[in-house]
């Protein structure tokens, strides 16, 4: 009997929780992007598979839904997992738009012919190097590669100008590399393209010989550096801001910027794509355009500490100065199987067992 009551309560609650009313206007961070009243439904809908996390991008999607009246549905997840899911779903995927943290998963979908073409109106919103020549993907924000270091052990004056110097004896057993992390693999792919495969592979092998240590992702390196478990590590720039915000003075780490011309200062973009199978192309393009609108780009730089990519938006002063070298500028399309090759070289270097 009790079981029956429990079951029926559950069933009712499931039904109730599935219907909600549309808000008249937004609050919180979404209202910073769009403070007005919400438009009536325009009869359009768009389904997004998002590898960018909810904390960073939900306010943007809420603002888009409110301002345009488009019905927005989202599946959150890790970019790699979502790319695998889309590949499994093929042309029956629910996704219209895929937002990726880094270019690797996008390249995977592209090589499986699952991406559609974005219209030139939208592509023209960013510099040429920040979208693919074929128009299959467009960048909408950027993160910079930096080195996080422990401030009790090092001062910036003691740190090198280039990642190439990290193979020196004085940095033996000091440096952490996130070998299996998507951004790192993307970075290494460009490294191979810029300096040649042999130079890049040699650098990685020298790093391994020099006692570089593997950590699974940016966050764990930033956290371990803040505790002093490791002295420094190659990461994306914005994790340190979150750790500082949460742990304050207990977190003993800061970002260090290599020389601006150095490969260690690469800008890696987050990418948006429209799936080839999408039947909501118009709403999808509207969304991509919205991601590149001034209020949203301003939000990315002010609130999530990222670099804006649309013309005319000025980066947050808290961010390290922007370099000329951006991932798009090396023409990611032509890298072809670069991501796969980079993964293999990283695995073969033995770093993953360090």
């Amino acid at each position: 009997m009790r079981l029956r009551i429990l079951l029926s309560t559950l069933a009712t609650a499931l039904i109730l929780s599935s219907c909600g009313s549309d808000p008249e206007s937004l609050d919180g961070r979404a209202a910073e992007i769009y403070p007005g009243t919400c438009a009536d439904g325009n009869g359009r809908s768009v389904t997004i598979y998002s590898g960018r996390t909810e904390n960073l991008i939900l306010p943007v999607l809420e603002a888009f839904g409110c301002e345009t009246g488009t019905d927005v549905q989202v599946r959150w997840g890790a970019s790699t997992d979502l790319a695998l899911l889309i590949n499994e779903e093929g042309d029956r995927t629910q996704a219209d738009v895929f937002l990726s943290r880094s270019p690797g998963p996008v390249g995977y979908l592209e090589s499986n012919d699952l991406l559609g073409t974005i219209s030139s109106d939208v592509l023209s919103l960013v510099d040429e190097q920040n979208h693919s020549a074929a128009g299959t993907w467009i960048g909408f924000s950027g993160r910079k590669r930096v080195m996080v270091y422990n401030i009790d052990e090092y001062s910036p004056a003691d740190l090198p100008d280039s990642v190439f110097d990290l193979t020196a004896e004085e940095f033996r057993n000091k440096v952490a590399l996130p070998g299996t992390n998507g951004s790192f693999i993307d970075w290494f792919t460009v490294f191979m393209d810029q300096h040649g495969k042999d130079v890049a592979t040699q650098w990685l092998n020298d790093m391994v010989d020099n006692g570089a240590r593997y950590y699974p992702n940016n966050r764990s390196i930033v956290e371990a550096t803040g505790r002093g478990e490791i002295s420094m590590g190659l990461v994306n720039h914005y994790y340190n801001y979150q750790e500082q915000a949460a742990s304050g003075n207990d977190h003993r780490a800061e970002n260090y910027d290599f020389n601006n011309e150095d490969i260690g200062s690469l800008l890696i973009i987050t990418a948006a794509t429209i799936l080839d199978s999408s039947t909501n192309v118009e709403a999808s393009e509207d969304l991509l355009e919205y991601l590149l609108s001034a209020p949203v780009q301003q939000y990315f730089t002010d609130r999530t500490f990222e670099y804006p990519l649309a013309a005319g938006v000025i980066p947050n002063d808290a961010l390290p100065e922007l370099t000329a070298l951006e991932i798009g500028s090396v023409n990611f399309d032509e890298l072809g199987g670069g991501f796969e090759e980079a993964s293999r070289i990283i695995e073969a270097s033995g770093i993953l067992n360090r």
Partner: protein
Amino acid sequence: MNKAETKQRGPAGLQLVVLGLAFLFSFPALYLIWRNFTEGGNPAELIGTRRILDPLWRSVSLALAVSATTAAIGTALAWLTNRTDLPGNRIWRVVLPIPLVFPTFIGAAAFIRTMNPGGLANRMLSELGIETVIEMRGFFGAWSVLTLFCYPYVYLPVAARLRQLPSSLEENARVLGQNPSQIILRVVLPQIGSVIAAGTLLVFLYTISDFGAVQLMRYDTLARSIFTSQLADQSVALALSLILLLLAGAIVAFERIFSRVKFTTDEALVGKPVQYSLGRWRFPAIGFVSLIVLLSTGAPLLALGDWATDGLIRTTRGGYPLTIDKEQVWESTWNTFSISVLAGLVAVIAILPIAFLVARYKSRIGSVAHSVIIATFALPGILIALAMRFWTLRSDWAYDLVNNTEVLLIFAYVVRFGSLAMGVILVAVAAVPKRLHDAGKILGVRKFSRFARIDLPIMTPGLAAAAGLVILSTMKELPITLLISPLGFSTLATRIFSSFEDAFVAEAGIMALILVALSSVLTWFLVIRKADHL
């Protein structure tokens, strides 16, 4: 089929039901075989290469080590908290299953934050003048953290079994002049041996499937090789996964041969379980249980609490606001609760017929179903999710029916975690004395009425414990929830992941604490209260 054969192999109806269930539970295995075929994966080519042998060896050695320690610790804890006068038993019983609910990606990270150099425990100890330099990493780190998070797989079923053992045998042994340690060794252990083995098998399989803990401890196992090659080399990832499944199948077969359990019992259920007095072992016992709780639950909770309070203090001081609001947290908490309870119920209902067939009859179908369900536990969750998606896309009918619904999600959870319910339910089914059952038959009680009035009440604690195991695991489940839940459906685990991915540690800490609180309430209700109503 003559009557005697039916008696041996089980009623045709039951066999048919189990066959159907076995088919549903084989979806992931069939998916892997099919995809290896279509993607040109070639497991045979990989076997024998260093690419597979090194991580395979690391997986197996880690799994063996974790199995050994969890078997010992889980059994000892179950014994101490259920059969002795250990002070605080009721509290320990609520606290001990908690580690099961930490999603390993944040649990292991929190553990590292407390235990490693410069961590919270280090700072506390160095205030007291004690300097420690142990660093949790590699084999040692993975082994410690998996032991501490996995012992409940042994502890929970063994505790359920210990509470169920009738006192008569032990009383007899005592009357015959055996001392307590002789009784434990000769009378109790043989009766709980099969349960310990079943729990340990789950630990072994979980360890080879785990990705979260091994990657944070930087220990390169087969599961990690699968993850790192997924995008770059899909055919290799698929081949590696199939090898993982074959390994699991071999282990399961091995276990079935060597712990061939007699699943019927004629024991009469007489009297409450015997309680033993610890005497001078009282303090060492308290020390042992406290140490385990401190390391397995205390260490991660310390870091989670630290992150959470920093976040809360920050907002009161006008710092960077939290990125989650009450409404979102409430919604995810409710979703977590409802979906996991439903998954627990469905798992018990699905496993029960299979357990009946396996425990009461000699049926090949039962054997196969049992092995498939247990071996599937070795597969990483993402493969289950992809397999479920793959099969629903093969038929328009299935697609329209279950796509984007909770039905598909619950189905996937049950396939992922059905193995957890299997062992406990087998024991529960076997615990119904044949004599009692036969008496009911002679008295002319009908089949279903017999089930409801004789079997069910006796099995209830076991079924509750089985549901509890599935519920606690579902609550923390991540890849399946992310990939095949209805659009817009979020649980505490998915929100913790989302926050933690981008280092929003304060938000992740707050929600992880809520997850632990919710699981403790459910554990108390299901595992403790139900069981004490025996």
